[in-house]
């Protein structure tokens, strides 16, 4: 049992309320604005252009996070990414298989070496 004076319940509830409100607002407000812009050329083009780049940004920053949290991260993460891509392109783009094998390679390298 932890008997240290941790945060009070009202504080925890306030944090939850703040987190919920801001997160939901950030996700919802753009749709309200876009509703009025629907059909505009710039919104249509961004809808086509954005996804692949957003995904590439998320992939790169996730890789960067992995590399910086563990000192040996880079040595194991880059081969694991290569395995993930290889499995995905070579074994018929089965996402679960690619992610599973890539992650297994990283976990084994990190814990066994």
């Amino acid at each position, binding site marked *: 049992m*932890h008997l240290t004076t*941790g*945060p009070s319940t009202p*504080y*925890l509830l*306030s*944090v*939850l*309320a*703040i*987190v*919920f409100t*801001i*997160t*939901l607002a*950030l*996700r919802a407000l*753009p749709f309200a*604005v*876009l509703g009025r812009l629907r059909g505009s*050329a710039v919104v249509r*083009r*961004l*809808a*086509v*252009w*954005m*996804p692949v*780049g*957003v*995904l*590439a*940004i*998320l*992939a*790169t*920053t*996730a*890789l*960067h*996070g*992995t590399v*910086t949290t563990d000192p040996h991260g880079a040595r194991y*993460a880059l081969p*694991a*990414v290569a395995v*993930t*891509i290889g499995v*995905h392109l070579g074994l*018929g*783009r089965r*996402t679960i298989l*690619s*992610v599973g094998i*890539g*992650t297994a390679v*990283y*976990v084994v390298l*990190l*814990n066994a070496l």
Partner: protein
Amino acid sequence: MPEDIRARISAGVHDSFSAGLGIFPLGIALGLLIIQAGLPWWLAPALSVAAFAGSLELLLVGMIATVTPLAAVALTVLVVNFRHVFYAFSFPLHLVRHPAARAYAVYAMIDEAYAVSASLPEQERSAPRLLAMQLACEAYWVGGGLLGVALGAALPAPVEGLEFALCALFTVLTLDAFRSRREIPSLLLAGASVTAALVLTPDLAVLTAMLLYVTLLLARHTLTARRPETTATAVRETPRRTADAFDDRP
């Protein structure tokens, strides 16, 4: 339930499996972290439902444990989750008609949900498939958190490296999105944005990269819009054409 809808729901649940490989271990990590920080167990499911944003929640545990002022918490949430603003441009909310379902789809628009739906060709998307995937993701996240809390002190050294699943998932989804739409200029602009962001603001890399990327895309729009009609028309027709051309999924 009509056969068609059942098939779509099952396709959505199937979509969620790969995301779940990243979400579930992260949920366990969140639960473990909350117990290790001496916080009450119910914070894991409460935080998962209130925020439903993995990276933010892991960050918040440390801030909550040290009773960080609420204004600082609010600013952190705003900065870390600001990237979701940009998802509205290409998240397929128009598929969802029912108001309650629309509200849930927006609330549950996490990175993984955006990523999985963005990598699907337009004609394979549907409201039941999207919502089933999102509900399943939330179940993995809350379930993982509860398991982490339950494991608590029982697991002194959790398996290291499982967080790589997130990196692998985004890598794979980038490959799939590129196959649906061969957007080489977008990929190059995103690469430049993320490189600059990692060098300039490593702690806020995602936010900076997204802002730069959108700015560059807007510049690209302005530049190509000024050219003769042909370019603009070609770009406008791109989604349909590429969707047909590359829809050779088995």
